[in-house]
Each structure stands twice: as structure tokens, then as C-alpha cells.
């Protein structure tokens, strides 16, 4: 039984058009103890981001004299995946923690907080395709919620390839049965790429198209990030984590 990834009307297995984002929901300030936090649903992804800091560094010799140390931990709950995941961090989680940190770092004004640490913790409660992009989007909002100085939000979205067609924002099914995934993060007001990864074969033309799709997706995520922050700080409505369906 194979999934029809793209039907004759140009629609994807979940009814989306090639350049359409999955439903995204962002809530700000969902955890009491953290200095800042955000909850994101990005398709079936359900992810919490929490920020602690700026705070003292332990052990002390890890502190930097002129700026803050940004640390990041991306972790999946054992129940987040189709088959139970071992709770110990996998090599994949370690790599993703690293690239997320490097994606956020250009936007954070680390020199405003010398000799401190800023910790970004990500917990994937339910995973779907694109969890690293969703994590970056949530982290960025959580950093803002923690009042950390930033020169821009970092927004993120992947493009990919299914049925030899470049599309926006792969879900789990498309990631698995498709033939390419290209997560991208950027600072929208500086037009700078802060995360880029690619798996899968793209021709020169497809690469350019995927790049353009991903930038476009990033911009839409950016709007949603801003709206979530506005709602918390200027709007109404209580944060909750209920299933959006």
C-alpha cells in the first residue's frame, strides 16, 4: 500500500497544495518556572521550548568573559514517536541540538550578557516531519518571552521533494516516502540564513526552487511568531495546551 504523494489535481496526501504550510499554532508563556517558554503545534508536531537565563555558568571556567554562552538541548519524549524512543539522547538529537543552537545564536545579543549562560530546552512531545524547524520557531519566541535581547526573530521552515516536485513543509509521511528534505532557518529582517540542511537529490533548478519555497515558508512562520507574541503581550486569551483538533 503506497501513499499517493501528489494527485492529478496537484494536491498532496493531506490535501495541501505544493506551496502550502501545515496548520501552525503558537502559544507563549506556557511554563511557570521557566524565564520564557512557548508551545508550538506545527502539523502534528507538539513541542515545548523553555528558556532559562541569563544565569550563572557551572562550572565557572565554561563562562565567557565578554558574552553569554548559548546552550541548547533538543530532546524527544519516549512517547513522541511511532515506536517508543529510548529516552537517552541519540546521535541525531545531539546533532539537531547543535544546529538549532547555531541557528539561534546569530540573532541573540550574547554580548549584552557577559559571563552568563542562556539555556534553551526543547521537548518534542509528539513528532512529525519538520520538528527542528518547529523547534527553532518556538525557541525564538521563548527567547523573546524570556526578555532576552535579540536583533531579530529566527523563523524556520523546510522545503522538500515528493514525486519529483518541489513542495513546502514536508510532514512525516512525505519525509519518509518523499525524496528530499531541506530545512532552512533565517533572520527575516537581515535576509540571512542561520540553518540549512539538505538530504536528497536536487537538480540545480530544483535546488533554487526549494530554496525559494523555504524562504517563503519562513516568512509565513515569522508572521505567526509575531502574532503569538502580540497576543501574549498586547492581546487577550489564556495559554493552553489542548489538542487543537
Amino acid at each position, binding site marked *: 500500500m503506497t501513499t499517493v504523494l501528489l494527485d492529478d489535481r496537484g494536491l498532496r496526501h493531506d490535501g495541501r497544495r505544493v506551496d502550502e504550510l501545515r496548520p501552525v499554532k503558537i502559544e507563549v508563556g506556557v*511554563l*511557570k*518556572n*521557566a524565564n520564557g*517558554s512557548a508551545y508550538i503545534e506545527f502539523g*502534528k508536531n*507538539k513541542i*515545548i*521550548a*523553555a528558556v*532559562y537565563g541569563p*544565569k550563572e555558568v557551572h562550572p565557572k571556567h565554561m563562562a565567557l568573559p565578554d558574552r553569554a554562552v548559548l546552550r541548547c*538541548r533538543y*530532546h524527544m*519524549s*519516549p*512517547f*513522541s*514517536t*511511532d*515506536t*517508543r524512543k529510548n*529516552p*537517552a539522547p541519540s546521535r541525531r538529537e545531539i546533532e539537531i541540538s547543535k544546529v538549532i543552537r547555531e541557528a539561534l545564536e546569530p540573532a541573540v545579543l550574547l554580548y549584552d550578557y557577559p559571563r552568563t549562560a542562556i*539555556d534553551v*530546552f*526543547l*521537548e518534542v*512531545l*509528539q*513528532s512529525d516531519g519538520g520538528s527542528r524547524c518547529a523547534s527553532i520557531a518556538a525557541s525564538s519566541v521563548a527567547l523573546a518571552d524570556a526578555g532576552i535581547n535579540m536583533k531579530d526573530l529566527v523563523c524556520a521552515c523546510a522545503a522538500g521533494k515528493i514525486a519529483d516536485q518541489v513542495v513546502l513543509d514536508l510532514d512525516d509521511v512525505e519525509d519518509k516516502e518523499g525524496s528530499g528534505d531541506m530545512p532552512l532557518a533565517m533572520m527575516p529582517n537581515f535576509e540571512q540564513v542561520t540553518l540549512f540542511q539538505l538530504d536528497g537529490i536536487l537538480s540545480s533548478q530544483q535546488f533554487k526552487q526549494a530554496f525559494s519555497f523555504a524562504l517563503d515558508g519562513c516568512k509565513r512562520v515569522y508572521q505567526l511568531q509575531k502574532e503569538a507574541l502580540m497576543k501574549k503581550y498586547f492581546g487577550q486569551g489564556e495559554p493552553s*495546551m*489542548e*489538542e487543537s483538533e
Partner: protein
Amino acid sequence: MSAVKKSLVVEQLRRNQMIELLAQGKRMDGRGLLDYRAIKIETGIIPKASGSAKVTIGDTQVIAGVKVETGTPFPDTPDQGLLIVNAELLPLSSPYAEPGPPDEGVIELARVVDRGIRESQMIDVSQLVIKEGEKVYAVFADVSILNTDGNLFDTTSYAVVAALLSAKYTKYEMVDGKLRPTEVKEALPLRTIPVSVTIAKIGDSIVVDPTDEEEAVMDARLTLTTDSNGNICAGQKGEPGTFSFDQMLSGADTSRMKGQEIRNLLKEATGYTG
């Protein structure tokens, strides 16, 4: 596991203040000594899991997810399915939680929650056998602690129980010696609803459902789990303080009484009527 960092002098002052207040039957947050904070139970929040629940007690927030997979039985219990309870104090839950393997406090927590469920015989593991001695169902209950404000033992326990009460799992069949999933989804074979009740001793006073602030100054902790028939099926005293003989026995009465109240909340939230 405390979210309130202990400072010698401050701790002592806070403790004295609290003991004085408790002697008058009052708590910092206005509750009565034997009152729980608001308990919120939501199920089905992780559709990828066989069962899931988020439980909030005050500001303590916990998510439990149950996965039912297939596995090999232990050699000495070839006719029983498996239950594995695991908890993780996520570093995002408090400024004092650290990434890394669970420390002794979290190991104790997971084992006490596990025993409450196991010893109550909540799950009829004899019904979780696909082929005796070869293949059984393995019920993994994993807990992610999202925010800590005291009483992790009860919060975690209720989350696991609610996730189990609401779980549906895929049945497998053996075809030519190989496992094959069927279309059938079933509820777990359940027999009772174990409910833990945790009391803390602070000075000479006994309170239920301690906050993080109260745990930081408590002398000792007692968790007693009762089943639907009011029997006590698991217990654990913790922390380096003591209980008098009378406190132990009246703790048993408290656990039965409060347990029944909370059992009703669990039934309501999960729709479980068994």
C-alpha cells in the same frame, strides 16, 4: 528534585514561619491541611501514543504517554505481559533540574509510581500474552515532567493512571511464527484504579499535596496508594525525617479518604467506568 534552592538561613526562617502557620491549621496558599490544590486531568493529548494524559496539580505539570508494543516475557513469568514505568525530570521543568540520566530522586519516583500500579494489580498482565513464553505485550508508561511545584509523586501517578485508563492498543496475531498487527484496537485489561496520596510532615503538622515550598522544609514524606476497594496496596516513606506510629496509621485513613475523591476525578476525566 526541589525547585526551591535551599539556603541555610532563609530555609530556617521559612520553615519556622510555616510551622507557626500550620499550628494554626493554615497554609501559605490558604488551603486546609488536607486539601489538594486544583487537579486538572486531560487525556488523549498525544495521539501517536496508545494512551496519554496531562495532569496539572497547582503549577506542577506532567505528561504521561503509554505505548503498547510487543516484546519477550521474562523467563520466570512466561505467562505475563510487561509493564515498564519510566519518568524523566526534564531540564525545562525547573531551574534546578539537570539534563542527564535520572538521579536517585527520579528513580525513586518512577519506582514508587510503578509499584502503585503493579501492586494494585490494575492491569491484568495475564491477558497481555500473545504466545506464552514467546511474545507478550509490553506496556511502556513514560512520564515527562514539564513544570515542578511539589508533589511529583501524586501528579506523576495520576498521569500514568489516566493514560492507562484511556489507552487503546493494536492487537497482534501470530501467523506462521511471525507477529502481524490486526485492525482491532482494544482497551487495556484493567481491574482497579490505584490512587496515591502523599502527605508531608512539617514540624508536628501533617499536610497533603505539598508544594515545592513545603517540600523544601518538610521533615518526611509518606505516599500511600489505595485501590478501588479501599485496600492499601503500596507505600513509601521518604526524606530523612520520621513519623510517629499514630501518624502512620492515620496516614492510612487519609489516603483512603482522599484517594476516593481523586478516583472519582480520574473516572470523570477518562470516562472509565469499570
